[in-house]
C-alpha cells in the first residue's frame, strides 16, 4: 500500500511541471506584460517621470528576461534578480494590480475555496448514493422516472445559470440575499454562533448549484452500474439461498458497483472545480473565482497564474484522494493490476 501511495505521488511531479508550464504559457500569451503596458500608456500621455521607476520594476520582476528563463524563475529553478525565489521556495509572486504579494491578495480566499469544493464533493456523494441505489432497485417506478427526469434537467442546466435562477427565486420568495458569504449585517462582526450559521446557510446554495450536474451524472452512472450487477447470476444465487433483499444488495452488487462510482469522482472533480469558479463569480463568493476573473481582465499575470495553478493542484489532490480511496477498496489496484471498470 505504501509503495502504491509513493508511486502515485511521484507520478504527480512531472504532471505538475507540465501543468505549470502550460499555465505559464497561457498567462504569457497576451501581448506585453502588465508593466510594459503601463509604460506604453504613460508614454502616450506624455509622462516620463515614473517610467524609470517602472523600468526598474520590470528588472525587479525579471520581466525583461527571455520566456524560458522567466518560467524557471517563476517556478524557482533559476536564479532571478533575488536569487532562487519562486514557487518552490514558497514565494507565490507579486500582484501588480493590488501592489501586494499574491499571498496577501488571495490568502484569505483559499480556505473557503477548499471548503466549498470539499463540501460539493460530499454533497455529490451523499445525495447521489441513496438516489442511485433507489433508482436501480426500483427500476421503472415513479420515483425512478422522477429522478431520471430531474437528472436530465440537472445535467442540462449550466451551473452558473442555475445560480442566477436560484438568486432570483430566493430573492422573490424569501427576500433573502443568497449572494456573498454571509448576511450583510455580519460583515465586520466578530465571529459568533449566529454568524457561523449565516455562513453555513450561505454555503448551501452554492454547494447545491455547483453539485447538481455532478450529482445527476453520478446517479445515472451508479444506477447503470448497479443495474448491470443486479442481473448477474450471483445475485440470483444469493436470493435462492434465502438472503434477505437488503443484505444481499449490500453484500455483493453494491460493492461491485461502488468501484466505478469512486473512480468516477476523479473524473468529476475538474468540472466541479470549474463550476466553483464561475458560480463564485455569479454568487459573489469570496473564493479565488472572482479574483481570477479580475486578474485575467487586468492582465495581472502572476496573480492569475498562481490561481490557475492552485485550482489545478486542487483538482490533482482530489484525484489523488479518489485514487487512494479506490486502492483501499480494491486490492487489485493496490497490487499493481488494473481497475475493473
Amino acid at each position: 500500500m505504501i509503495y502504491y501511495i509513493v508511486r502515485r505521488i511521484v507520478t504527480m511531479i512531472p504532471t505538475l511541471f507540465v501543468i505549470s508550464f502550460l499555465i505559464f504559457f497561457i498567462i504569457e500569451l497576451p501581448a506585453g506584460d502588465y508593466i510594459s503596458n503601463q509604460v506604453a500608456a504613460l508614454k502616450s500621455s506624455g509622462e516620463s517621470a515614473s517610467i524609470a521607476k517602472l523600468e526598474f520594476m520590470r528588472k525587479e520582476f525579471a520581466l525583461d528576461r527571455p520566456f524560458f528563463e522567466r518560467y524557471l524563475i517563476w517556478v524557482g529553478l533559476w536564479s532571478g534578480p533575488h536569487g532562487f525565489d519562486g514557487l518552490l521556495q514558497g514565494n507565490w509572486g507579486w500582484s501588480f494590480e493590488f501592489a501586494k504579494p499574491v499571498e496577501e491578495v488571495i490568502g484569505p480566499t483559499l480556505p473557503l475555496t477548499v471548503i466549498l469544493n470539499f463540501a460539493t464533493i460530499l454533497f455529490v456523494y451523499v445525495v447521489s448514493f441513496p438516489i442511485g441505489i433507489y433508482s436501480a432497485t426500483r427500476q421503472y417506478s415513479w420515483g425512478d422516472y422522477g429522478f431520471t427526469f430531474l437528472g436530465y434537467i440537472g445535467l442540462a442546466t449550466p451551473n452558473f445559470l442555475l445560480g442566477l435562477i436560484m438568486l432570483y427565486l430566493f430573492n422573490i420568495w424569501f427576500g433573502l440575499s443568497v449572494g456573498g458569504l454571509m448576511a450583510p449585517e455580519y460583515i465586520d462582526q466578530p465571529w459568533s454562533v449566529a454568524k457561523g450559521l449565516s455562513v453555513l446557510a450561505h454555503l448551501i446554495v452554492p454547494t447545491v448549484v455547483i453539485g447538481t450536474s455532478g450529482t445527476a451524472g453520478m446517479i445515472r452512472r451508479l444506477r447503470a452500474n448497479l443495474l448491470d450487477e443486479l442481473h448477474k447470476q450471483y445475485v440470483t444465487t444469493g436470493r435462492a439461498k434465502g438472503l434477505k433483499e437488503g443484505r444481499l444488495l449490500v453484500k455483493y452488487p453494491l460493492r461491485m458497483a461502488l468501484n466505478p462510482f469512486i473512480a468516477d469522482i476523479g473524473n468529476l472533480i475538474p468540472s466541479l472545480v470549474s463550476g466553483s469558479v464561475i458560480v463564485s463569480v455569479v454568487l459573489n463568493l469570496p473564493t479565488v473565482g472572482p479574483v481570477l476573473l479580475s486578474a485575467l481582465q487586468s492582465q495581472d499575470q502572476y496573480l492569475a497564474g498562481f490561481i490557475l495553478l492552485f485550482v489545478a493542484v486542487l483538482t490533482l489532490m482530489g484525484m489523488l484522494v479518489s485514487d487512494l480511496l479506490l486502492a483501499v477498496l480494491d486490492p487489485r489496484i493496490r497490487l499493481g493490476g488494473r481497475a475493473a471498470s
Partner: protein
Amino acid sequence: MTGTRMENENTVEHYVDPAPFNPATTEALTPEQERYYQASQWKIMWWKFKRHKIAVWSGVVLILFYLCVPFAEVIAPYTPNTRDSQHLYAPPQPLHLFHEGKFVGPFVYGMKSEIDMTVMKWVFTPDPAKVQPIRFFCRGDDYMFWGLFKADFHLFCPAKGGTLFLAGTDRLGRDQLSGLIYGARLSLTVGLVGVAISIVLGLFFGGIAGYFGGILDSAIQRLIEIMRSLPELPLWMALSAALPVTWSPVWIYFGLTIILGLLDWPGLARAVRSKLLSLREEEYAKAAVLMGAKPGRVIGRHLLPGFTSHIIASATLSIPSMILGETALSFLNLGLRRPSVSWGVLLNEAQNISVVTVYPWLMAPVIPIIIVVLAFNFLGDGLRDAADPYK
C-alpha cells in the same frame, strides 16, 4: 470413434435425396429479414435511431432552432441592435387571440408608459384600447441579408406604429426575442465549429496513438490524462482573456471556437484510440495490412468507417459543453461582445442581481440554452445507441 463407424456400416447405406436441393427453401428469409440483412450499416442505424422517440424529437427541435442560423434576419421582427428609446426595460407583451370575446387573430395590447417618480423607473401597463394585430409576411426594419444585400422582409412584424416585444426589452430598449433569434446564429454554430476542430485534433492524436502504439501512444496518453485533469473553465477564461481586444468580432468568434476545441479533444482522442486498438485486431484489418496497405489507407479505408458513427455520437455529446462554454465566457465579458449577439452576450445584461429581480425577463436566454442542451444530450444518447446497430 471406431465404434461409431462400425455402427454406420451396419446401418443403411448412404442415402441421398433425389430431389434437387435449393438452400433458399430451407432458410427462406421473410421479407423483413431480407430487408434487414441487405441493408447497409447506415440504414440499420437509421432504423435503430428512429425507435428512440425522444432522440428523434430532439433532432426535430434542433433543426427548428438551427433554422434561425441562416434565416435570423427574416424570422426576427427587429434587428438585435435596434433601440427603442421609448421602451426601456419594457416587459414582455403577452400574445392574445380574443379581444373582448371577439376573435381578432394574434395581437398584443399596446403599452402605456409613465415614469414612477418614487423609484425613478418606467412603468409599462397594457392598454386594452390599443389592439395591435401582428402582421405576417410584411416589411419592417431594414437589414443586410447575409451582409450581402439590403432587404426589409420579415416573417412577422409589429402593427404599424405599434410595438412587438414578446420577450421584453433590455436596458437600451432592444428587443429580447430578436436578440435571441440572432444570438442563436453565434451560440449554435460555436459548438459545431468547435467540435469540428476537436474532431480533427482528436482523430489525429487518437489515431496515431491507437495505431502505432509504443512510446507515441504512452506520450499521448500522458498528455490526454494531464489535459483531462485540468479544470476546463478557468483555462478557457485565461485563453479568451488573451484574445486581443482590438480584434474584430469575426476574429474573436473564431478565436473562441479554437479555444473551445483546443481543450476538448482529449475525450474524443481517447475514444478514437480505444476503438482503433480493438478494431486493429480484427481479421479484415490484419488482412489489409498483410496485403501491403499503408497505414494511412488502413486507417482511412478500413478502420475509420468502423467507428465514424461512434465519433459522430460522442461529438454530438460534446457540443452542449461548448455552447455552455461560450455562454459562460460571454456572460463573464471574456468572450463575444456587442455588437455581436449571442445568448451569453444577452445574459450579460442579467449579471446584476438587483436588475434581474426587477426585470426578470432579462433571464430569457436561459430557456433556449436549456432546451438546446437537453436536445443535444437526448440526440447524442440516441445516436450512441444507434452507433452499434448490430447489438
